[in-house]
């Protein structure tokens, strides 16, 4: 399969993993980069389609966002919201310390 020009490097994978807080073993960086390049190369085939004069769209449907009225219709479900949390206390989510 054709790989894209200036494709993803092992270094890029390391950076993206860090930004996403994902742990990737060093020996997996290169294989993942190759996988991603495979996917990107496949997607690049879309470049062959002629889109001359077509406005870029961010969704598959050409319509404006539906809007809702400013009414309180949700919330008040603290216990539901906390249900999946590994730890909670006194109504708060409790997570490992995020500052020094």
């Amino acid at each position: 399969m054709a790989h894209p020009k200036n494709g993803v490097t092992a270094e890029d994978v390391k950076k993206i993993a860090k930004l996403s807080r994902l742990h990737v073993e060093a020996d997996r960086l290169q294989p993942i980069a190759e996988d991603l390049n495979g996917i990107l190369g496949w997607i690049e085939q879309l470049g062959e389609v002629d889109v001359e004069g077509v406005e870029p769209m961010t969704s598959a449907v050409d319509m404006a966002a539906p809007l809702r009225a400013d009414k309180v219709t949700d919330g008040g479900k603290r216990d539901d919201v906390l249900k999946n949390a590994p730890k909670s206390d006194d109504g708060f989510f409790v997570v490992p310390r995020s500052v020094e």
Partner: protein
Amino acid sequence: MFIAPRVADKKDWITTDTGDWEIIIGLEVHAQVASESKLFSGSATEYGSAPNTQVSLVDAGMPGMLPVVNAYCIEQAVKTGYGLNAKINLFSRFDRKNYFYVDLPQGYQISQFEHPIVGEGEIEILPIDGDGNVGDPVLVGIERLHLEQDAGKSVHDLSPDETYVDLNRCGVALMEIVSKPDMRSPEEASAYVEKLRGIVRALGTCDGDMEKGNLRADVNVSVRRPGGELGTRCEIKNVNSMRFIRQAINFEARRHIDILEAGGEIDQETRLFDSVKGETRTMRSKEDAHDYRYFPDPDLLPIKLEQSFVDKIKANLPEMPDVRKARFMQQYDMDEYKARLLSPDQRLANVLEDTIFETFSARLGDRSKAILTYTGSNENKIKLPLSVKSSEVEKATELLHSNYDTSEFIPELHDVAKAINNWTLGPVFEFASKSSEDPADVLKRTDLKGLYFAIFNDTISGKIAKGVFEKMFAGEGTADEIIERDGLKQVTDMGAIEAMVDEVIAGNAAQAEKAKENPKLLGFFVGQVMKASQGKANPQAVNKILREKLGL
């Protein structure tokens, strides 16, 4: 990229052994939209509720939940855009700003990157230095205003090795207002935030409460040689008072200059302001700077506004503080200082104008009808307060010719306005601050109209008026009721005053002799007579009779 053509006033330069420096400042202000519910969910936005009680599954970032845009928030952003004299974009779009943090359960913030709802604008600010001197007006460019979600709140002091997270604020709508780097001094920066706050409060789009964090500023600071090449900037996050904004800028500018003069380089970084120490410190350096990987949020369709929708918002904008200030100065002959204090708060301004007009029309009596139909030349034009009903205007229009010249009433209006303004700026503000009341409420429940006429008709002297006000403030009744009840009516009976004068002269015969040589002693006698009358004697009459009796 940003350009910064304006060179700071020389007075704002920082001069060191190596020469002059100027500070370049740009601000990003986050103003919380005063909506009932969040930007993309129906959870409440109320401040101070128990942790995680105002969180929906959308706010908690649960899989499969879809955001739906709050129409009211869109409207408030457009309104604020008009307040900033900015371009409204009929097409805008939401993007995902990806970053990882404990109080952002989605793993991204929904914001607007490429297509903000409001584009470039411009506002005028009036910087005021520490001594209250008003500088020249400065035009500050607005780069953009976009809508985005707020994050949750992290609490670090409930456990030594854990962070507690409350998502109540998560998803609340914010308007991020980005300025151009057009400010050159700490005073200009705080004047800009003050101006923004005035605008959003006048529009009702944000309550502007900085203590609650409903309006907060990120400050971008760099230094350069005056007019020279731009330096590297640092961003100081979440500064939440006008004073802290000035402190943070002063500290940061000095820090930059010290580094540059020692031959160093400024690292582009994000810093925190420590309000206790009055200094800034590194929060994160460029190396860990976020790579936000923005992309259009696939959960949300673009926002497309109808021209008729934005036109309607524009047509219904309230009077902006600057316009009101200029009108107050012109219409009521106020100086800049008084207008600056009395015009920003819309409610106070409304109550004040109602009071002025009630008093004014009472003073005009029958002539007041003429005012209602006034359409004379522009410089004398009077804008009637809302309390004057349109039916009254119509009725009066029938009675009088439409180009009736009311310029003859202007001095009377100015006289009334001057008195009411001074009472408001003096006792009303003073007592309101003592009792932590809204000055508008104090103004509304004290009878300044009655007080005005009591002085105007010489019923009481100005000296006694303050005491009457104090009693009105305490809820003891109208001016007339208090004056009547406490027997405060000024003594204008010449015979009675003469008797008091005689008594005082007789009791101070030696002084009276001296007074003939030394007219300055007159003051002593006036004081004694006023005291004898318990302040009720008409001071002009006392003066006149004393002069006669003492042969002055």
